[in-house]
């Protein structure tokens, strides 16, 4: 697991540092824990801030290795992955932190759940 500072982002995305501090985590299990505790308002704010920047963020990440070593790249990837997993809660699930009418997500075990995104 990486201990990279979550507020260090590439310069073009430096203004997203507060959102990164709130959402970006290196592992799926840690991102799940953040998501389970989030409110509808927080999902909405994350979505409204990230969606207009998503194209630019992914364009930046296109030049990064899939599991980067560089801390700023790592944090940008963590932020993108956090949004990748959080967006459906705003766009599809009405702001609920759970998938509606679903099995208890905490009972799903992800083999990769504790693997960090770093290289």
């Amino acid at each position, binding site marked *: 697991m990486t201990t990279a500072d979550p507020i260090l982002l590439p310069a073009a995305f430096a203004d997203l540092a507060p959102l990164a501090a709130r959402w970006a985590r290196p592992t799926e299990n840690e991102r799940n824990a953040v998501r389970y505790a989030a409110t509808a308002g927080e999902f909405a704010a994350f979505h409204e801030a990230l969606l207009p920047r998503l194209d630019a963020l992914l364009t930046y990440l296109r030049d990064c290795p899939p599991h980067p070593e560089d801390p700023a790249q790592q944090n940008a990837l963590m932020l993108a992955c956090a949004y990748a997993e959080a967006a459906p809660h705003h766009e599809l699930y009405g702001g609920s932190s759970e998938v509606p009418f679903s099995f208890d997500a905490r009972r799903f075990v992800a083999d*990769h759940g504790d693997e960090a995104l770093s290289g």
Partner: protein
Amino acid sequence: MQEIIATLDHIRRSVPQIREELGVDPIPVGAIRDPAVYELEKERIFKKVWLKVATAWELPNPGDYKVKELPVADTSILIVRAKDGRIRAYHNVCTHRGNKVVPNKGFETFGRARANVVTCRFHGWVFSTDGALKSVPMEDAFGHLDKACLGLREIACDEWEGFVFVNFDLEPAQSLRDYLGDFATLFGGYPYRESTTAFRYSTVLKCNWKVALYAFSEGYHVPTIHAGSLPGFRGIEHSDFKLIGPHASSTIYGAGMDTAPSTGIFAGVLHGSDSHAPRPDLLPADINPKRRGDFQFELPNIFPNLLIHLASGCGYPGLSYFTHQFWPLDHGTTLWEGINYFRPAANAAEYAAQVHINALHRNAWLEDTATMEDTFTGIMSGAIDDMQLMDQEFLIRHAALTLNSYLAGDTQ
């Protein structure tokens, strides 16, 4: 235009043919409800037929091993790539006094046999990855010990397209290839081994294994169960039915759905990449032979407990294929394993996009699994004696009839 040469017309069935061949009567739920049936299933099915237990790409190097706990076969198995490159399977049982040679954590444990040997932690007996007993501490103190007869107890093991199967029968009635039959042709030739990025989920469900298997074996539930994760869904066509001995298959075509804005952007990353774009041309010739543009995935049931949904990027963006497996732990408890397979991401943008698609699909699985414990409770209540099955549920009907045939001893 690509010329498609389909060769498996004899396995195709129309709806009238399916009804004629399999019937339309309700199917009794006794095989799900009765604990005695589970004991028969263990002996007549799970200890007799070929079972997928690993993939070759999980064990890329000599010495790589996987321990898999299989209560349905009353054993723990050690699957290992030996020094000669071949994958072999053994009972994970020391021939000294029966201890586990390789200790495990949970249902699956991975490791590497250093110097191509594994050593039992109890008394230090050392076994080669080819099974032979190599050394025994204080061997002279045994008086007589025939090491040549004390290798690890081997289990029949073979590969198809990189999927590793075992058969617990000491003398399997059929080779793996013969057991798979036309299924191996129908699904053969796709480059499964190139899709090595796997997101694997598992959970223990309080239901009989067939309840979980059946829930994933039809498309009838999609518009209702997945109303949350598939918004604006414009319907599916579940057709191209195929019967293949104990196995069966079918095709899911889709009329599309509303794409959320974030999904549109993430999908664009994958669709814009040669590695992850839809590749209908890679599908085996008999799957979607007309190469319809609305193809989503092929949905088979490989008896008794494996589904391989082959999409080639045509359904969920970038998703090459996904598998489900249903391992009974006892009559009323099942280990479900679901794995999404992608080709490796070339950059961090592709990886983030895969994380998004994986999350959408995992969430759909959370919707699927929500029904299973309730269904089992309902069946155990005794309130119903039969399942009512419609045409799109023919995989269930076929699996139930195949199961009955094996339990009755009509099938080897």
